[in-house]
């Protein structure tokens, strides 16, 4: 197809022993995925069945609050609901009736399980089935769990997409399915490249609207655009569809390998592949090279967050010249990230799950040039002099495929460039950073 990727001479990380520690994890729960899923699926509503904490999380994670009424909400459990389960089902019916009466534009309703609803064993599958019958055919009701006792951050999207697969109609058509919620502009670029190679028909999951004629069957092959879609992968396989394993489409190399896996499946001629990809590949290389100047030779440390860590480490080490010290992921699914692990040169610690205090000790000892971590850790690490990149931006920003490869590198180079740019050191007269809320005579805990 195209030139084979340079495999690391010393071997990849696929068989590197994985460090697993058990302690406090500093991660979001799967509910967070609703923040981007509800924008992607324009006729869907996400109703979390949970507590005030769930509602507060969604509001806080949304960061910038959305001015319009969002297509998500929380049915907050109250004392009376906890007393008896029959009541909770009736109450849920009432909330959903009210919601659907006021939002006739809703065609798909997701009942989203939370920690409290899981613990009291509120049967949302039963509720979804009952409601689907009641509101058919105008609304389809599905359920999935975004609970923090079962899912971590991006696993919420996985659970959501996996819940949609069993109800897809069967089709024997030969087709390509792209799986993962991508920003529209990115999705259109990917489809554009594949169509230019003569590949089709191409379908996407999730579709922007419920009514789109998406079926699934044994002649469906699918490519994952995100590394965290393990359950969706299993669900698709159960429906007879076949996975096209590949490195994930981050950076020029990842995108090329990902496209190549599909092109090979569809028998695209090498010169056609070259013709379609040559220009965007060159652009991507150029854009990456610019951003990579600040990254070359710098070290990076990943705290676990989105499961994008392994593919991103592959991109940053191979295309931007960085050295990975530790690559932490909340969960490592070798069936999905195996091709990326193969390309990642042996050396970094690969860790799964976390004990955040021990991991912070390691990060502080290693003094990486850049630390990728969640929002709760970023400012505290910056205050200790470590440049950070908040991981959540990686799932809120278009970063896939050729045209965004430079932007992706830019997300990492910006904190380093900024650290070089600011002439603020030492911040206070005694040389110690004393900004933030601690500044002044009435500091809180600093």
């Amino acid at each position, binding site marked *: 197809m195209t030139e084979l990727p340079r495999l690391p001479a010393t071997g990849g990380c696929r068989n590197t022993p994985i460090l697993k520690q058990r*302690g*406090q*994890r*500093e991660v*979001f*729960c*799967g509910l967070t995925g609703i923040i981007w899923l509800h924008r992607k699926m324009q006729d869907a509503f996400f*109703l979390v*069945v949970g*507590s*005030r*904490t769930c509602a*507060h999380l969604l*509001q*806080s*994670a949304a*960061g910038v*609050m959305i*001015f319009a*009424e*969002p297509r998500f*909400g929380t*049915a*907050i459990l*109250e004392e009376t609901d906890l007393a008896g389960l029959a009541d909770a089902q009736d*109450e849920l019916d*009432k*909330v959903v009736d009210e919601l659907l009466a*006021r*939002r006739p*534009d809703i065609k798909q309703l997701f009942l989203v399980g939370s*920690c*409290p609803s*899981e*613990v*009291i064993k509120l049967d949302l599958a039963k509720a979804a089935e009952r409601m689907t019958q009641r509101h058919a055919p105008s609304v389809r009701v599905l359920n999935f769990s975004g*609970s*923090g*006792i*079962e899912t*971590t951050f991006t696993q919420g999207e996985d659970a959501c997409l996996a819940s949609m697969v069993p109800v897809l109609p069967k089709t024997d058509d030969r087709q390509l399915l792209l799986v993962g919620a991508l920003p529209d502009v990115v999705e259109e670029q990917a489809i554009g490249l594949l169509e230019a190679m003569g590949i089709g028909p191409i379908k996407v999951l999730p579709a922007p609207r419920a009514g789109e004629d998406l079926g699934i069957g044994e002649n469906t092959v699918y490519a994952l655009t995100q590394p965290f879609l393990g359950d969706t992968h299993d669900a698709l396989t159960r429906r007879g569809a076949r996975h096209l394993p590949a490195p994930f489409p981050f950076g020029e190399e990842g995108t090329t390998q990902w496209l190549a896996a599909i092109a090979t499946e569809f028998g695209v001629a090498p010169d056609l592949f070259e013709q379609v990809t040559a220009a965007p590949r060159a652009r991507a290389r150029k854009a990456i090279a610019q951003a990579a100047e600040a990254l070359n030779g710098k070290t990076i440390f990943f705290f676990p967050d989105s499961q994008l860590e392994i593919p991103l480490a592959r991109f940053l080490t191979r295309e931007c010249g960085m050295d990975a010290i530790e690559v932490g992921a909340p969960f490592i699914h070798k069936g999905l990230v195996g091709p990326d692990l193969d390309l990642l040169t042996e050396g970094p610690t690969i860790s799964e799950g976390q004990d955040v*205090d021990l991991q912070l000790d390691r990060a502080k000892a290693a003094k990486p040039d850049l630390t990728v971590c*969640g*929002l*709760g*850790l*970023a*400012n*505290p690490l*910056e*205050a200790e002099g470590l440049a950070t990149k908040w991981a959540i931006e990686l799932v809120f920003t278009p970063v896939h495929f050729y045209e965004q490869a430079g932007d992706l590198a830019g997300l990492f180079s910006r904190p380093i460039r900024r650290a070089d740019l600011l002439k603020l050191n030492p911040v206070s007269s005694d040389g110690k*950073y004393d900004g*933030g*809320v*601690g500044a*002044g*005579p*009435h500091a*809180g*805990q600093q």
Partner: protein
Amino acid sequence: MKLTVWTYEGPPHVGAMRVATGMRDLHYVLHAPQGDTYADLLFTMIERRDHRPPVTYTTFQARDLGADTANLFKTAAQEAYDRFKPQAIIVGASCTAELIQDDPGGMAETMGLPVPTIPLELPSYQRKENFGADETFFQIVKTLAKPMERTKQISANLIGPTALGFRHRDDIQEVTTLLSDMGISVNVVAPMTSSPQDIAQMGAAHFNVLMYPETAESAARWMERELDQPYTKTVPIGVGATRDFIAEVAAISGNEAYLDTSRLRLPWYSKSVDSTYLTGKRVFLFGDGTHVLAAARIAQDEMGFEVVGLGCYNREMARPVRAKAKEMGLTATITDDYLEVERVIEQLQPEMILGTQMERHIGKRLGIPCAVISAPVHVQDFPARYSPQMGIEGANVIFDTWVHPLVMGLEEHLLHMFREDFEFHDAAGPSHHGGHAPKPEDTGGPAPQPAASPRGLSGEMKDGSVIWLADAENELKKIPFFVRGKARRNTETFAAERGVAEISVDTLYEAKAHYAR
């Protein structure tokens, strides 16, 4: 079960975190699943804290349920103690852990940790964030504070400021200055800035200044009873309230009342002729009870606004807020339902909203200027500059903050005179807000026209019994945006009261004459 889109308050354990994070050398061991760690970002991102909140979450998972979540808690508590060596530990459960009934408080007690261990009972399915903060601070004080000899100089504790509080950082400084000018020293500021050892010294103060009843009233009452310390009832936000506060402090302490007004600018700014245009501006107030009560007084007595509605989201303050509303001839809106607040604002059509970050969104949608007076607030409401709400400088800050969203006095007149100018037109918004034009109003205003897009949950429309004739509708559009809502509402009320079904240009001007002031 209650459907919620946005919330004004978080769960009660977030209130406990606000107390713990404001303090020093205290650690919070929270029995909670991993997702609850999101709460750290409230402090590290919104407030830009440079340290992690002192909270250890047990982060139990589904597979731990039915196995041994209790042991997980004990391990977490022991490791937290070993690593952070706090002077005291508070322990509790978040909403999910409350359901599995592990009794963190009881377990912690049996562990024999060498520091005070304070159990918290915060019912997640009944109460909210402010209760959580108030109860946590109360439990800490009750456990650690003891009667003791008073300081020689008259001194006070400042109680109520917490992490993530609206301008708490700067209010502390302002109140400290007010007291210092009267020869009163500050003994302990708590929870913010204090350690458990400091809390143990609270009994040395002669009285307490209750800065924020939302977070410290229970502790204030307990200390009044057990430590014989009276507490102040006036919250010094606004000029009048600050003067009353000084008088109250004088009465409690026996020191002579003194207020240095050399830096006070609000009264003159409000009197100066440019402020004439503020007269009778119709404002709607919403937030926590304390800030709304203070704002109501300032709006009416110190700015010359007309308060057309007010309310609070914390039910604990419903009684005083209702009483204040009644005194002003209004009905208070006591609700934590954001959509209901939006409906009330839509109906009242105020010229300005004084609210929380949530009302800022409502204001943006309806094209009504808004200034923030209360939590919940976002990152931009933690300014780098000194920006208190209390005391002398607080009054100055409030004047500026409330006037800033409005169109300036002379500009108002120019907009009236040259309403068709292609550059200088009302839809461009106040000229000092580049890029923040209010919502364009092609349809002539947010209500009672149906919204352009189906807004679902809040889409309750007024019944359209009064019809605007085309000429009147056009005439209405010539009225600048910042008074258009009022003109529309007044005209409709005027028409409805007279049983007029169709509004003509004449009706519009008859209404204008009727409401002239």
